[in-house]
């Protein structure tokens, strides 16, 4: 049952969006699709509104930062849940850090409101069309987006903590 629905998801996405689906993988118990940025809103809308797929529940979303992937540094992960059939999928999309914009999905899932504000706050991802895009957990006066990898956790001027021994 689950596997057939899963293949349906893959087939439907492939036939409808074609090369906007960059990759489809299985990570542990999750199917993961990487979607091109220009199609992400349409894909989410399709997944939510298609009668068979009906991914009506946005479980969570979070920002990602891979500074070494040139041109694809920033990303966002969406996790959807089809509650009646109990199927979860994960979508990802990546885009350059110089142009960190994404369409908002608050019109599809009201719960994305604070989630998007959180990712704006921590990664500086600008969600176009968001009703109230401002910082949520950090103070408004902050001038940077602290979850990006270039900001160290420790005070950068300290020399007594040796990364070779105790860092990542």
């Amino acid at each position, binding site marked *: 049952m689950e596997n057939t629905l899963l293949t349906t998801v893959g087939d439907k996405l492939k036939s409808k969006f074609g090369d906007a689906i960059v990759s489809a993988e299985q*990570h*542990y118990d*999750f199917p*993961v699709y990487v979607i091109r940025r220009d199609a992400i809103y349409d894909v989410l809308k399709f997944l939510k509104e298609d009668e068979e797929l009906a991914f*009506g*529940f*946005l*479980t*969570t979303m*979070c920002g*990602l*930062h891979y500074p070494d992937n040139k041109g694809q540094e920033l990303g966002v*992960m969406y*996790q959807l849940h089809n*509650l009646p059939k*109990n199927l*979860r999928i*994960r979508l990802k999309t990546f885009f350059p850090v110089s142009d960190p914009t994404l369409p908002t999905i608050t019109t599809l*899932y*009201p*719960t994305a*409101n*604070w*989630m998007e504000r*959180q990712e704006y706050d*921590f990664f500086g991802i600008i969600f176009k069309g968001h009703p109230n895009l401002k*910082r*949520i*957990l*950090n*103070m408004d006066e902050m001038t940077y987006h*602290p*979850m990006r990898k270039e900001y160290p*956790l*420790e005070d950068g001027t300290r020399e007594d903590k040796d990364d070779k021994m105790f*860092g*990542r």
Partner: protein
Amino acid sequence: MSVKNKVDKVNQGNIPHTTGNEQLAPNEFTTLNLGPTHPATHGIFQNVLKMDGEIIMEGESTIGYIHRAFEKIAERRPYYQITVLTDRMNYCSSPINNLGWHMTVEKLLKLEIPKRVQYLRVIIMELARIADHIICNSVIGVDTGAMTGFLYIFQQRESIYDIFEELCGARLTTNIGRIGGLERDFSPKAWALLDKFLNEFPGKLKEFENLLMRNRIFMDRTINCGPITAEKALGYGFTGPNLRAAGVDYDVRVMNPYCSYEEFEFTVPVGTQGDTYDRFMVRQEEMWQSVSIIKQAIEKVRKEPEGVFHADVPEFFLPPKQEVYNNMEALIYHFKIVMGESDVPVGEVYHCVEGGNGELGFYLISDGGRTPYRMHLRRPCFIYYQAYTDMIKGTFLSDAILTMSSMNVIAGELDA
């Protein structure tokens, strides 16, 4: 409608709720700062409310007062050190957070956990759920003006904390369990305390129910207070008792069983109105179910081989101290674990558990390093608290207080 008319009508009890859409001249509204520190909000929550007399026209939540950047800190901590961060999220039921985190890492490492450990974990998590629900439900009582129930039932929470103390040495921020199992077996004293608790608790819970459940004042106060429809609740990402009170039977323990929950018999209580009374009742029933789950788990533990409290994974589970000093291999493993040198596979996993107030999810990306490359926490509070200003629109201020306490919003989890 003029203010005077409205106040008159409210006084006559004709319009308990306005639609919130009536427009008055701006200077006729009052701005009220509810919080950040307010004795009635049980935590640091600020809501700036636009009031029309006693009625809330609109509100805006400000959160982040105790933000501690767990997600950032976790990127610089070995896996076993992150457990203490999870303690401080929903601190009313920190064992669930701890064990949820361990299970996430175990999933990443593909570790097989012995059945006995899983049952012991179920006992711990259900005790934590009871402690969490005790706090929430008794505080609903306090906010309606009934202090007695709170004082009676809180002794039981104390008994649960005594058990935790015996299991792990701590009471509130427990840091219970380890990757691969538990740090130690249940001691005879722990079993005795658990027995004592199971004997006492049902009676006390019944007493608490007698005080509130069919109490006319309590019912008048809570029924139809802060209701939410199932559709709206799903849209806002509600999970846990709050979603179930609205009538959706989504429980992670049933939907995506972890820790052998599929072997247990229990019912998932659901409400119909999604109001404060339903949330109260759902939690109340869940406590009874938790008691039954604990009893089943004790039966199951008895059938398992004694003394097993962790999986045989020397790369991740610290050896006993005595062996570290006398055995070369144990010393090496000890050093590797403490320095975070154990090999971790590359991958990304999501694991969720049914926390005290909803689906608590851990999303973890590992690049094979000493620490997670990225860790994201799905905190149920953070996600459903955004519905709060919507839910209190057009209600009285005192109902707003009650709505908040019945939603079980925990500041530590909200701000992470």
